[in-house]
């Protein structure tokens, strides 16, 4: 009767207003364990959005639902204009995914792997140009196992770029990397955003979130307990009267390390 507009159509029309991701009341349980407990948040286009929280907070489950890898129990999630809960397979073509454990077939070299990944999207790719983009051009004929930790992560990101995704998901991209390699990766993430892509980043490093993220959501026990720009989150804490017990020094050991070993000049 009447002019009934389905709620999904409303969501899709909202999507056009500069949001890459919209999540509403998303839920997922494993048996008795509630992993994602009715969370809602939006990610704007061309934003670097941080998803922070202790292990088991539900970050990975949330991200995997958005990536179309896991079926949610309820709620709504629109990613790059696609209703993920309804069309998980379709969203995979529009996003790029870098997973924590990133292994690749070791009988192909980097250029071949990129061409293979492009073929999964029905695309051709200029493998050398893409490798140049992540500073691995001279490794085009090497195998993944010969790469350093930082190089592996950058290669992993290059495989996530073969389809020129609208949204890129980075899952703890700098875990286990040395300080220079972390900074290389931050630069890469920022340059990818400058290409016009949106990045969703999970991390355990708060300095990383502070440096990279325009906004960050902090999750705990399946819920989003805070969501704002990192500077605002810090301001809010200070406004509550929080003071560090020891005064901040002008430099810390990481600054010493970077000063002695050279900052970010070269790709590693």
């Amino acid at each position: 009767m009447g002019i009934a507009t389905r709620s999904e159509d409303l969501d899709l029309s909202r999507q056009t207003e500069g949001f890459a991701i919209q999540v509403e009341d998303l839920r997922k349980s494993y048996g008795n364990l509630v992993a994602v407990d009715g969370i809602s948040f939006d990610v704007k286009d061309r934003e670097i959005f941080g998803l922070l929280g202790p292990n088991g907070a539900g970050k990975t489950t949330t991200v995997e639902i958005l990536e179309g890898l896991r079926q949610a129990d309820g709620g709504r999630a629109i990613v790059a204009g696609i209703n993920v809960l309804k069309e998980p397979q379709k969203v995979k073509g529009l996003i790029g995914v870098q997973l924590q454990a990133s292994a690749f077939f070791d009988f192909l070299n980097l250029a071949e792997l990129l061409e293979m990944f492009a073929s999964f999207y029905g695309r051709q790719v200029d493998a050398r140009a893409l490798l140049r983009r992540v500073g691995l051009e001279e490794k085009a004929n090497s195998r993944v196992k010969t790469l350093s930790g930082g190089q592996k992560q950058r290669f992993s990101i290059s495989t996530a770029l073969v389809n020129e995704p609208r949204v890129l998901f980075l899952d703890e991209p700098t875990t286990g990397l040395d300080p220079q390699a972390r900074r290389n990766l931050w630069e890469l993430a920022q340059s990818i955003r400058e290409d016009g892509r949106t990045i969703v980043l999970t991390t355990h490093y708060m300095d990383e979130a502070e440096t990279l993220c325009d906004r960050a959501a902090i999750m705990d026990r399946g819920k989003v307990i805070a969501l704002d720009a990192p500077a605002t989150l810090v301001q809010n804490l200070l406004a509550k009267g929080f003071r560090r017990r020891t005064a901040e020094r002008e430099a810390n050991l990481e600054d010493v390390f970077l000063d002695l070993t050279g900052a970010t000049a070269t790709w590693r």
Partner: protein
Amino acid sequence: MAVNIGVVDQAHNPVSQLVISRLSQIKAVKLHTGTLGSERAALERGDRDAVVVLPATLGQGPLALPAYYNSGKPQESSAALGLMNAFVDQASFQYAHMQPAFTLNAQPVNSRNLSYIDFLVPGVIAMSIMQTGLFSVAFSFVAFKQQGILRRLMATPMKVSDFLLSRIVTYLMMSIVQMAILIVLGLLLYHLHFVGNVVYLVIVGFVGAAIFMAIGFSISGFARDEGAVAAIANLISFPMMFLSGVFFTLSNEPSWLQPITKLLPLTFLADALRGISLNGDTLWAVRFDLVGLAIWLAVTLFLAMRLFRWEVV
């Protein structure tokens, strides 16, 4: 195979020397001469199949030649005695200046003379199909899962079933290449008597490969790591290798074991491959093996679908 015949020459006359030289010309006879004592001792040791005595009165009239044979080696000793009998008959006719009433007119015929290698090659093909299916599938999929490769692939729009299918096609191709290598090596190095239809061979090989791949997928569903895969896959393949008549004919097996081994998938596979490649059997001729394989295929596919998991549990 030559029979060892000992001759004790007590006559030492032209007749006895003629007998010995005639005997030594027979290809199937390995002739030994000696005293009665030494030849009998050799017989008792098992070094002779029969011992014949040429008495001192040889050539002086009708005579029974004393002969001894090894009762513990019935095949060899009866061959030796038969040879000696024929030889003695011929000599008697000559001695009596008589024409034998019947003679044998033997014609050479090229027969297939199947050797152990002919038996072995189809069995080894069956075994290699089993090993490739079981181990390659189980090892690589457990590794793919552990390293997160499957997960990364699932994050692309490619359908995982396409990936699965492409792996299966790859393994089937590998099975064909293995079959080809084994047959060509057999033909070149071991004069394999291969008379089979290659298409039939490939069809049966595919069915066998499918069964063992399905078992491989089942294993990769519940094995946690590659160590567990090795243990489970060996537990399945090792007994089959010995029980399924890959290396030996089943007729050598204890009779209580035979009903079990006849129902093993590797037995059906090896028998069908053997029938096709050695006897030139058609698919219809090996239909009982094919029915056995089809039942195994249904069972293992069902198991694979129940047990296979895309993710590490």
